[in-house]
């Protein structure tokens, strides 16, 4: 798929834009032990929430990249005028965004888990929730970016639009990790996250494509 490979190539050429949200993720997480307490017991209870909130925020930072520069240099219009259906286009863009910003979170999260004294039993669950949850964040975020890309002050608005929609992912993912740390079974939460992923994959591209058409008006 041409759009996917182009976006990946662009990400490769603009490495700092890819690395910055990731560094942000790491730095936010390290703030918490300093701000609250380095005690293992405290960190352990907070770890799932901290990691997930930080993941949410760093996704938010990288979201704009999905359509903003394409909008500004006119290539978004070209993309929408191409024979390729806009939903497929959005899917390709979201996939590229996730590969560049969601997947690295997944790779770096175990390290942060160690920082925050997350028990080893909870690590697989942390990874699974990130694997299921971060694509949802990219999907839902795509709608938000598509809606705000035509606005001059889109950035702050984006977080207002998108964060409330992220709530279910946050609740279930952070909870699953916490429950796994307590040695509980978390299949229910994981199924729910999987359901959210399916739902967002089927509906978000439609909404984002419609939003893009309105934004380039």
């Amino acid at each position, binding site marked *: 798929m*041409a*759009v996917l490979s*182009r976006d990946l*190539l*662009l990400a490769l*050429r*603009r490495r700092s834009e890819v690395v910055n949200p990731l560094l942000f993720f790491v730095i936010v997480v390290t703030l918490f032990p300093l701000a609250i307490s380095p005690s293992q017991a405290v960190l352990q209870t907070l770890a799932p929430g901290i990691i997930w909130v930080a993941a949410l925020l760093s996704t938010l930072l990288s979201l704009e990249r999905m359509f903003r520069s394409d909008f*500004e*240099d*006119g*290539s978004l*219009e*070209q*993309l*929408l*005028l*191409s*024979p*390729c*259906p806009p939903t497929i286009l959005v899917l390709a863009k979201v996939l590229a965004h996730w590969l560049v910003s969601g997947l690295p979170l997944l790779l770096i999260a175990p390290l942060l888990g160690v920082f925050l004294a997350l028990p080893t039993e909870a690590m697989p669950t942390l990874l699974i929730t990130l694997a299921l949850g971060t694509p949802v964040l990219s999907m839902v975020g795509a709608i938000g970016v598509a809606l705000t890309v035509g606005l001059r002050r889109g950035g702050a608005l984006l977080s207002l639009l998108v964060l409330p929609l992220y709530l279910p992912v946050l609740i279930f993912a952070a909870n699953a990790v916490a429950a796994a740390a307590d040695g509980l079974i978390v299949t229910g939460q994981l199924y729910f996250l999987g359901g959210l992923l399916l739902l967002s994959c089927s509906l978000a591209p439609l909404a984002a494509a419609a939003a893009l058409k309105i934004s*380039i*008006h």
Partner: protein
Amino acid sequence: MLRAVDLGCERGDRILFSGLNLHLHAGEVLQVHGANGCGKTTLLRALCGLTRPATGEILWQEKDIRDDESTFSDDVIHIGHHDGIKQELSALENLRFAVALSAKSPELSAEQALAHFGLTAQTHLPAYVLSAGQRRRVALARLLLNAARLWVLDEPFTALDQSSIGVMEAMLHQHASNGGCVVITSHHAIPLEPGIHRELHLTT
């Protein structure tokens, strides 16, 4: 081939134009004139389906362009104020991506298209080192790549040097004699025979 019926567009709460009818046949070049801000760009964007007009409809080969989007988008190329060139990609990569997006196979290779605009030396340079005029030429080279029959060009001569303007004018001529259609805005007088050259004046 291209027909607009009772077309009207608004920008914000301002009516730019309304009740506009036009009919463009194969082999004709329509040059749109008008003062700044009178809606030339909006008209062009409406004609290629980017902006939804407030009233009226646009027909391509007697079919509403919204009903049959994928066929129409195969037939149209729009080059607007922004070049749609990615700064980080080379001239060649930019063109190759444009080819990959279109459903038809190109008549010329991307390298040949660049050579046509005298950009052979810049083929592999990233677009951010190119000058504005060179970037414009890369964008215009897209016209050679897919056999779109309708060209919608918004100020294509901006930033071009004299020889590139000549190349572009020859391309317009060639396209019209091959039975293509062009809608163009330009403040520059385009030397074309009166038979194929039509003009539209938008007034506020």
